[in-house]
């Protein structure tokens, strides 16, 4: 198919899908005016901007989600608020909360269908150099990752008494039925993660990012939309409903993080066993040496990041309770314990995100994502478990922890920047050899992947939702 006609076809498809999405959105939300027109315009803009980049359904979906989030901020929260309530209302908390339902509509009626549609259209025009796709690898590895992620999520669901609620979807009250349904969904979502994103998942850290974004999407799809419809209840997309389901949001995020991590681990094992172990594909430095370098640089990089984090934690009075308890309340010991923890976590940054950032700018954004992941995993999940043995994924708990979010973001950004500086310093030696330089370039994430879409959606929703719903 010629390039131009393919492009025009993509625009027409998106206009059509956008119009349908707009009609559906208008049907679901009375506050959306001129839905068909809005959707058609949205679809055309999305196709023109993201058309060349939406090369697979998964890539299209991530671009679509990022686009939906930005458009929600621009149109309902920004322009519509200003138009209806004056400039003073533009972007205000109340306006954003009042239009939380629009966020769900933008994601489900525009972002996801347009992204998947444009990506599916894009895959029809195969170009040379397209990574090969393996269905067995996607389904098996994704399914396994879904099981592990579902197990972690299931721990919270058991505590919150969610399983009978799930069982109610098939008219049962049995906990066992609920567990079975939960794992069935977990496997399906995990397998779809593999199918959609196999071509984009490279390292552990980026896979966790993809998993996080996918988990957030499923929070919009599952508890906020499908479950009430399935149960025959009226659809409630208010921010209060979102706040009530905040625990489920964190659960979906943790599920996505674990599923992404496990997917990457199995995938690396698969690729390592079948591809990288082949001497023909040998790298100048073996995987063991690369791993040690990553740990070393991550540890060193976290010195700067840890310093920034701890200064924020002390200044904001949000030193984690675990560390306060461990240090007996002495600030110096608390600082030292937190600093040591940051070093270990910095090493994990090296392990998770090496070879991901081609530039310092990209490194900073990956670092922010790392900091956000740490906020969800460490203070919001692990610390309550360590201190009290229970989950505390409530919106109020997240509100209390918001001050440390700034510190974690700063920690991630500084650590990532320093890590790339160390990585480049080492690579400068290797890159004197052009063959090594070519191999290195192949291993690093290229430009054109949907990583920027991921950053906007995961960072934007990951930071904004705890603020909005608390």
């Amino acid at each position, binding site marked *: 198919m010629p390039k131009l006609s393919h492009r025009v076809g993509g625009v027409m498809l998106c206009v059509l899908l956008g119009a349908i999405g707009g009609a559906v959105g208008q049907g679901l939300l009375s506050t959306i005016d001129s839905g068909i027109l809005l959707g058609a315009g949205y679809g055309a803009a999305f196709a023109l*901007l*993201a058309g*060349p*980049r939406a090369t697979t359904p998964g890539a299209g979906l991530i*671009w679509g989600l*990022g*686009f939906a989030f*930005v458009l929600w*901020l*621009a149109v309902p*929260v*920004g322009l519509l608020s*200003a138009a209806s309530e004056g*400039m003073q209302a*533009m*972007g*205000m*908390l109340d306006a*954003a909360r009042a239009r939380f339902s629009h966020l769900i509509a933008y994601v489900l009626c525009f972002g996801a269908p347009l992204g998947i549609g444009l990506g599916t259209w894009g895959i029809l025009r195969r170009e040379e150099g397209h990574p090969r796709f393996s269905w067995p690898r996607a389904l098996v590895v994704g399914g396994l990752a879904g099981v592990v992620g579902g197990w972690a999520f299931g721990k919270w669901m058991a505590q919150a008494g969610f399983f009978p609620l799930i069982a109610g979807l098939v008219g049962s009250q049995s906990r066992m039925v609920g567990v079975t349904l939960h794992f069935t969904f977990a496997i399906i979502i995990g397998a779809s993660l593999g199918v959609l994103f196999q071509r984009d998942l490279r390292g552990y850290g980026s896979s966790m990012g993809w998993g996080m974004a996918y988990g957030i999407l499923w929070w919009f799809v599952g508890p906020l939309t499908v479950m009430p419809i399935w149960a025959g209840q009226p659809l409630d997309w208010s921010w209060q409903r979102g706040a009530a389901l905040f625990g489920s949001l964190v659960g979906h995020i943790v599920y996505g993080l674990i599923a992404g991590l496990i997917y990457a681990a199995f995938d690396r094992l698969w690729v390592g066993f079948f591809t990288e172990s082949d001497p023909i594909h040998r790298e100048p430095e*073996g995987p*063991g*040496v690369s791993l*040690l370098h990553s740990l070393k640089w991550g540890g060193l990089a976290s010195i700067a990041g840890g310093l920034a984090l701890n200064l*924020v934690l002390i*200044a*904001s009075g949000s030193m984690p309770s675990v560390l306060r308890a461990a240090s007996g309340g002495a600030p110096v010991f608390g600082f030292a314990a937190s600093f040591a923890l940051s070093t270990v976590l910095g090493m994990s940054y090296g392990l998770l995100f090496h070879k991901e950032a081609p*530039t*310092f*700018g*990209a490194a*900073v*954004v990956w670092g*922010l994502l790392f900091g956000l992941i740490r906020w969800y995993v460490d203070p919001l999940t692990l610390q309550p478990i360590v201190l009290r043995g229970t989950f505390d994924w409530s919106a109020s708990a997240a509100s*209390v922890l*918001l*001050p440390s*979010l*700034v510190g974690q*973001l*700063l920690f991630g*950004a500084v650590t990532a920047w320093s890590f790339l500086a160390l990585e480049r*310093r080492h690579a*400068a*030696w*290797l*890159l*004197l*050899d052009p063959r090594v330089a070519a191999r290195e370039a192949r291993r690093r994430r290229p*430009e*054109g992947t949907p990583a*920027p*879409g991921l*950053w*906007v959606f995961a*960072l*934007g929703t990951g*930071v*904004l939702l705890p*603020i909005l719903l*608390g």
Partner: protein
Amino acid sequence: MSITAPTLRAAWTAASSRPSRVLRRAGIGLVGGLLASAALVATLRLGAAPVALGVLVGIGYGVWFRFPRRAYVDSMMTAAALGIPLWALVSVVLFPVLSGQRPMWTAAGMRALVPHLVGWVLFGAVLGLASQAVSDAVERWLGPEPAPPSAPEPHKRRIVILGGGFAGVTTAEQLERLFGADRSVAITLVSDTNALLFTPMLAEVAGSSLEPTHISSPIRTSLRRTQVLRGPVSSVDLSARRVVVASVPPITLPFDQLVLTLGSVTNHLGLENVARHTLGFKTLREAMRIRNQVIDSFERAEIESDPERRRELLTFVVAGGGFAGVELAGALNDFARGMLADYPALQTDDLAIVLVHPGDRILPELSPQLAAYALERMAARGVTFRLGERVADARPGAFVLKSGEEIRGQTLVWTAGSTPHPLLTALPFERSKRGAVVVDEHLAIPGHPGVWAAGDCAAIVDARSKEPCPPTAQFALREGRTLAENIHAALSSGRPKPFHFDALGALCVVGHHTACAELRVPFTRRHVRFSGLLAWMMWRFIYLVKLPGLERKVRVLSDWTLELFFPRDIAQTISEPAPAVEMRGPPTAAAPSCSPLAPGQPHPAAPALLP
């Protein structure tokens, strides 16, 4: 004169320097930031200040980020994502701090700043789109951004290192570290072998405890930017400043800095017969030959009916009671006595490991108490000692000691002397009694600027203690580091560093789970001495740590672990006849396999090279 696009384009291409590139990007970012600042003005509500802020951020974004043509969605999303940290940094922290308040990072504060968050994300999205559009327009108008001019190839300063032992490889590694990716320096290392041999574990190879390649680290994988050439050096021309490597065709290497780390070779003290009938113990090949010679002797002895002849085959003599000789004798003793289990026709009495040493005690490097302990333990395990003796002559089937005593045997390993590399004799350097090149305290050779020496081939005096440094691996490593630092100083107008090193001590394995240790107490001149299992464990730990390369460490550790469960390997791996064949006696009916071989004829008892 009118300004046209081609005129501008030509001017632009001519000014493709870094400042103009930065200026172009900054201009693009400035326009993008100016357009996008509308979002900040609407949400930050700080008057016109957000415009200046937007322009500043825009300039930074333009300079730091650059996307390929028409990458609108990439640029838009990336900049939008960067809006979140900008919100945290500027709105949450910077604005309140500048106005004398605490950062607004409480939940309530952050909620109050939601409009700023919206504003920053939208600012980013517009900035990305606008910058990309301006960038594409500028590219259409002025042409693509000129590629940075490739840096001219700098004048190369050539450092040539001769020798791939501890000193040579350490010098190269340290030079790589010091010069980093500096393209003005070219480092070349010439070595007879392509691997660095970890000599402290050589006795374990001869004793079949370790696989030969596991103690050799390939130099090419250890060094990243050094050119490695394998081959012997045939000549060094100091006046023309070049080295010739004896390859086919010969390679001439010009140098600005020359490092001599050629090491030493076996010195047979002028005993020609001994040189002809002995095995050396300095290289991996020699260690493998010793191992194969032992296995070969056992195979022959197993089918030998004459008891005298059998004892002759199973007598292994080691000349020299220093570290190398003692460790080798201990390893051979363990190996050979363990092999008896696989050869039912052989008895313990048939086997003899004899150590000949001219001094009145072995291990002169250690204290008399430890030397006595080593002798006692080794004797208890079956090693025979001839102290106050030296091997004076050798003939087929027998070795003659200085006292006239004759030891009937087939295998003699010589560890009784070494001398610096013979190439040094052809060079006009002052040399010490043992033939090593005399260097100054900075390891430079006096009178020859840019020529340095370290390791076994150099006579080095410690700059602080004024004591001569022994030719050991421990010193060679430190000498290599200092030498590299001094070359770096010489090439970067720095100050050279005098060489000083306090020896850490010495460790010597004398048999199964038995070793002697004499270690210096840190920061003092005192030494602690101990022996037995603890010393043995320390030996293994320290040398495993010192063994270069993680991969090699893992391999050696696996060999040691396997040895706990399985007997040592007695498969022969070299098919060529060992040199000891020459010293076999005349053919007899009882020992047909001992007949001398014609050149090129495969030895009947030697198996083919195993796959």
